[in-house]
């Protein structure tokens, strides 16, 4: 993956990165509070919200895809890479939250 490809995917990811990051944090926080037994619920919650984002952007931002297509990046490629990155970030957050549980519980008002 060259620099241009990374830039283009980053631009596309900007469409939903903030919302997705908030959802990932909420979901990871839930896993930290409930323990790993809550992972399945949290994972499907995350997957469902990603599905909603996917449908929303495909419907309401469909004209933007012509920008990326004119650069040689298909809709499928954009979604594949950004969703994969988003899931990696999500799993990383769960790892960070669960590994630092004691510290987070001490500093957060919970």
């Amino acid at each position, binding site marked *: 993956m060259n620099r*241009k490809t990374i*830039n*283009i995917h980053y*631009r596309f990811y*900007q*469409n939903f990165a903030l919302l997705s990051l908030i959802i990932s944090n909420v979901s990871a926080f839930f896993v930290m509070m409930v323990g790993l037994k809550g992972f399945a619920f949290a994972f499907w919650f995350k997957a469902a919200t990603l599905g909603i984002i996917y449908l929303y952007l495909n419907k309401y*931002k469909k*004209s*933007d895809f*012509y*920008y990326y*297509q*004119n*650069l*040689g990046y*298909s809709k499928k490629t954009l979604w594949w890479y950004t969703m994969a990155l988003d899931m990696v970030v999500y799993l990383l957050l769960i790892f960070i939250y669960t590994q630092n549980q004691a510290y987070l519980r001490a500093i957060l008002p919970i």
Partner: protein
Amino acid sequence: MKHTLEADGINLEFGNRKILSDIYLKCETGKITGLLGRNGNGKSCLMNIIYGTLNATDKSIRLDGRPLLQAYKKPEILLYLPQFNFIPKFLKLKSIFTDFNLEYNELESLFPEFKTKYNSRIKNLSGGQRRLIEIYIVLKSNSKFALLDEPFSHLSPLMIETVKELLLETKKTKGLLVTDHMFRDIIDVSDDLYLLTGGRTHLTKDIKELEFLGYAKL
């Protein structure tokens, strides 16, 4: 080297409604091919079929006689300007020109009004300026052909004249297929002119045919 883009045997139906019927259209590098037609006659559908983003019942898209599939994945061959704005609103002109490997200075020399806009987001430009940027990047980017769907919409008369000059300049290196409702401007710049009516394309030899075929009063 001269290149040819052909759309042949295109049929498109939505339910029982036949939109396009056995369409043939040829576009060559070094030429501007105009496509005229009334609203709902399938001009945009035809462009999307050529670009590969709309499936037709039957189609054969050829580049230099060889099948061209999924043209939207090959910007070095074909670029597409849709009839609506397509650049994401949050992008800055700086990023857009970086993405398309274009020199901003050239835009500034052609359109001095953009001299202070390098760091502006596309959403902060006027409708006409936004359309002008879209036309500019499609025309200036490296490709053999470009499809332009309603490039003159939202443009002031002065801007239209500048875009027409840009089209004539670009055709030296590219083949252009252009459609718009401003038919006089299309006639002005076109080398070949097709009229899409009744689901079929008619290559017009004389612009009086446009009147004869019921498209316009000249």
